């Protein structure tokens, strides 16, 4: 489904990703781990098309099509979803209105009619229940005044609404207490099926106890230095990141 080939990217002339190769198939969960500054968040931003970063070499291919020249919103329409490490606040725009706009824009891109209000409401009810979200958040301004945990839950709620093909969870576990973590992980697991894929980006293996990866990749200094099964996460936790520096 997703193929990343020798990807080099950076910001203002400074290289951050220095040749990433990664293939992800439908139905798989991949975890990307690594110390701070290894390029994890850059990778997720580049896949989503953030123009702050410049791709200098390599390619990102989704369903046999290069994404490099594709606008971020079009990537979203094609099914790429990024759960932000720091979800952005948009004052005055309610979560409901925001997600409604997002869904209808996607439908428009797919040549579909707007989702009738009745169906939209039903969908919102269903998905917010899945994430055990307090309904009152839905009528509040997007992420404004939300706690860290609420923001992350809202991200997964949007993911549930948009049903992406490829979901990237960037440090979704940070700022979550154990209960919230379980709810979020449960939400992700329920959404997982044989046709979609998930990339979990994390510093700790804690989240991976709940979202069990098929593959674990260790990112260090802009490169994937080690790949393995889920046991790699435990090994990493045990030995610490200093271990990989010597690999």
């Amino acid at each position, binding site marked *: 489904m997703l193929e990343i080939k020798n990807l080099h990217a950076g910001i203002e002339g400074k290289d951050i990703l220095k040749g990433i190769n990664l293939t992800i198939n439908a139905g798989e969960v991949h975890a990307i781990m690594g110390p701070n500054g290894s390029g994890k968040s850059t990778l997720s931003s580049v896949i989503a098309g953030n123009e702050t970063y410049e791709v200098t070499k390599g390619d990102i291919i989704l369903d046999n099509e290069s994404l490099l020249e594709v606008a971020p*919103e079009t990537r979203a329409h094609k099914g790429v979803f990024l759960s932000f490490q720091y979800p952005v*606040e948009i004052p005055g725009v309610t979560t409901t209105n925001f997600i409604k706009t*997002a869904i209808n824009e996607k439908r428009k891109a797919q040549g579909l009619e707007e989702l009738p209000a009745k169906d939209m409401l039903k969908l919102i009810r269903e998905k917010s229940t899945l994430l055990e979200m307090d309904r009152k958040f839905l009528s509040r301004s997007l992420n404004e005044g939300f706690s860290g945990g609420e923001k992350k839950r809202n991200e997964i709620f949007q993911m549930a609404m948009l049903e992406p093909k490829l979901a990237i969870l960037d440090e979704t576990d940070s700022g979550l207490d154990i209960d919230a973590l379980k709810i979020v992980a449960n939400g992700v697991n329920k959404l997982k099926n044989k046709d979609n894929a998930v990339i979990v980006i994390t510093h700790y293996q804690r989240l991976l106890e709940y979202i069990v990866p098929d593959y674990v990749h260790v990112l260090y200094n802009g490169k994937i230095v080690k790949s393995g099964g889920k046991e790699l996460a435990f090994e990493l936790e045990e030995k610490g990141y200093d271990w990989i520096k010597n690999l």
Partner: protein
Amino acid sequence: MNKFTEDDLKKELETKEYEYGFYTDIEADKFPVGLNEDVVIAISKKKNEPKWMTDWRLEAFRIWKEMEEPEWANINYKKPDFQNISYYSAPKQKPTLDSLDQVDPELLKTFEKLGISIDEQKRLSNVAVDVVMDSVSVATTFKKTLNEKGIIFCPISEAIQKHPDLVKKYLGSIVPKTDNFYAALNSAVFSDGSFCYIPKGVTCPMELSTYFRINEGGTGQFERTLVIADKGSYVSYLEGCTAPQRDENQLHAAVVELIALDDAEIKYSTVQNWFPGDDKGKGGVFNFVTKRGLCETNAKISWTQVETGSAITWKYPSCILKGDNAVGEFYSIAVTNNYQQADTGTKMIHLGNNTKSTIISKGVSAGKSQNSYRGLVQIHSKAKNARNFSQCDSLLMGNECGAHTFPYIECKNQTAQIEHEATTSKIGEDQLFYCNQRGIDTEKAIALIVNGFSKEVLNKLPMEFAVEAQKLLEISLEGSVG
């Protein structure tokens, strides 16, 4: 990448033509240009006014002659030549109409283009529309329903004939002839406008609404509005404006006076979308408006305005909170683009005890425009326990525009509580990317964010008006608003 950037948007904004820029071809009865006592008398005569009214106008004219055009506002423009303006223009057909069938079909077409056809209004929104077409009313509806309640809603020219006592008592009582240059001019030459009286204890069953139009090239429009809400009554009044695209500057100097007697409430909403001039700053309406309301004991006046048009806006809807427990509110969105200049805000004058005022002002500047908030909160020494909350937020798009705030706060009583906040910000790159990532393109994202920014004010508008207001925001800043 062929991504729609903010720059592209700006470009598109600049080339975007004035969507409502069309011109209705209705024959007009028009005075030659120039202003002197004879013209003032002729206007008065044209309207068959009684002598007291003619004298009132003449006095205003003499006051105006001695005054100078003010220069303190943060606006730059070529001052109009007041001797090169025609001070009267009326459609030649002047029938008294009972139904829409009798209205000039051209006019109906105009309103349809605006999406506010009287027809629809009448049928769906339960709105009585007093249409002011180039200074003279040509259609009045829903008169009967209003009659039953004793509500008077008619052109002010008619009120001068039929209700002289009310007009004599209140006209100029809130905005005196001496108030300012433009108010004095208006007092001398006002052609028409609306008059509204709500009797004691009556809640007006529908939104009263007037659509103003400036239609004839070169004619200034001098509207005069007087709304009186007697004790314990309630009225919601809507005013909306668009103007045809014209190449020369059009002067507009309206005066609106509101009187809310004890326990009365007036809600006055405006959507203003006059021709703002083209992308080179040519043309556009000069809008110098004096709006003021007086609140007696327990009365409330609420001004809500959405300002997207005009080349120059000079407008400060104000409240004099005279009675105890009086409440004044001002909710405003002003959007400027291209070379538009807006200097707008409010005055809240606290005279009574326990008076309260709220000011929410939102300014959006784009292009090469300048957007200023100018406000005064004044607590007099005898006004105990006065409260004010003000919030002025500015949103900037592009770096060729300006946003300015000039709040004046004058407090002479120790029991007052005043809070003023102002912020200036731009639409963040991170906000746009977040929206993009969820599949919302930049154009739509901007509309969404601007709409969110303006929401506190939009929410204050009556439902049917809010829809139109959103439409105008769309046109002014592009992108459909979700």
